[in-house]
């Protein structure tokens, strides 16, 4: 089974690597945000720069998980290759595990531009242990977004997936405190902030970046979102199975 997961991951990764612009796209927006909004204001402060870098890394990870994954799943579903894949002797697990592994690899790649900007223009802490911890937190915090991405990709035609995933992405990023830190967010946003999954992810990443230990509520909420999104994605997969007219 694990060799099949690897075969599917390899196949997905080859498809991604052969269109390299897609690799960069996810990392570019957070890198530019880092350069424009973080570097001028907190660039001299090592602790604040590291926290900002963490927020931007998570934004890149979320975009690879939510936007890129939902679009590629929706597009693949429209190809006649997809039903053929379903005739191969493998259940849904290798296919989706392969997709998730590839999405995670993409997330790691998407942190590179932010890290470079942080290294050149800020005093952020870039020790290998610190970086590894932050990347690990980004991967953990992005799990519900990967599952939401799968759910959207399985439910929607690709054009709708492009729109809906972007519409969801920005509120998640803003309410989660990734664009503006929670300390400077308006009061009403701070009230709802713990209930979006991006806040729990943010708390994990900030902790890994040397910030305060995460509060319990956002982490519980993150776990709930993960379970609900996982159930929704599994349901959408089963629903999709009997769907297409052919």
């Amino acid at each position, binding site marked *: 089974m694990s*060799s*099949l997961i690897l*075969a*599917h991951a*390899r*196949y997905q990764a*080859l*498809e991604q690597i*052969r*269109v390299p612009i897609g690799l960069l796209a996810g990392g570019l927006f957070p890198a530019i945000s880092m350069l424009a909004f973080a570097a001028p204001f907190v660039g001299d402060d090592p602790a604040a720069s590291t926290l900002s870098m963490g927020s931007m890394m998570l934004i890149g990870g979320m975009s690879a998980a939510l936007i890129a994954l939902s679009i590629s799943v929706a597009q693949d579903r429209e*190809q*006649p*290759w*997809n*039903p*053929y894949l*379903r*005739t*191969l*002797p*493998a*259940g849904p697990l290798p296919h989706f595990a392969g997709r998730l592994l590839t999405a995670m690899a993409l997330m790691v790649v998407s942190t590179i531009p932010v890290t470079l900007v942080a290294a050149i223009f800020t005093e952020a802490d870039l020790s290998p242990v610190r970086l590894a911890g932050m990347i690990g937190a980004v991967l953990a915090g992005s799990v519900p977004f990967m599952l939401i991405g799968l759910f959207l990709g399985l439910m929607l035609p690709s054009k709708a997936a492009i729109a809906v995933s972007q519409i969801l992405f920005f509120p998640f990023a803003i309410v989660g405190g990734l664009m503006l830190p929670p300390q400077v967010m308006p009061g009403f946003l701070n009230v709802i902030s713990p209930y979006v999954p991006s806040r729990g992810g943010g708390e994990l990443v900030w902790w890994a970046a040397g910030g305060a230990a995460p509060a319990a509520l956002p982490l519980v909420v993150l776990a709930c979102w993960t379970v609900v999104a996982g159930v929704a994605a599994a349901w959408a997969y089963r629903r999709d199975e*009997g769907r297409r*007219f*052919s």
Partner: protein
Amino acid sequence: MTVLARTVEATRRYGDVLALDRVSVDIRAGELVGLLGPNGAGKSTLINLFVGLRRPSSGTVELLGGSPSDPAVRRGIGVTPQETGLPEVLRVGEIVDFVSSHFPRRAAKAELLDRFGLGDLVKRQIGGLSGGQKRRLAVALAFAGRPRLVFLDEPTTGLDVEARRALWDGIKAFHEDGGTVLLTSHYLEEIEALAERVVVVGHGRVLADDTMRAVRDVVGVRRVSLDAGELPELPELPGVAAVEREGGRVHLMTTDPDRLVVELVRSGAPFSGLEIRPTSLEEAFLTITAAKEHAHV
């Protein structure tokens, strides 16, 4: 003989559309079965049931002694993808490796590609292949897991004559080694070249399931049309399988148009506008089945 795949009274609906209507078919080990019928007849739906892409609305489908929805059972089958959907950015060798990785018994890559005339293209990206090369690659993928039973859906559509013959040779070689094949086509010629047994489907029903020879005879039906006001004795004319009237025009379905015309002239009945045309497969089979059902009533 062992039955490798069977449907029993399988019905499949898509909403209000009845795609398959109580179809029972057995595919036995070592057979090369042609599935023939016009577009929309239910061929693809039947294949989709066998390969686990669809479940029947009612009735049962059995594959290699198990259920097609069990991945372990599907290790024994091979399926052709539609060539238009092959992942464009992958190389030929990579896609063969990917498909092979699903099967415990794998065909040797070089030998497999050679067999389908793709030996020089291992490193080529699929997007750069010609339509015919993609088609051959799609068929080759069905054999990557050394299957006992392959489902070939329209394997040679869009190929030139030479490539078509090469593919036919590949399919025949697999069959001679003991492999079982279910082949769909809307070309009678293709089924004739390969199949020993033919299943004809139309409007979701099995219209005929017989040897190639028997089916060919049925397909030999001709339509004799003429304008005639009064031909009360028509049903007594020899070899007429069915009669249709359309205003003043009469259409007679027959396997022996020459004899029918001779008899018509002999009968002395006045007629004009005589026309003899081959029937389409669908027409031929619907005529025969309609005639059969009528006889039973």
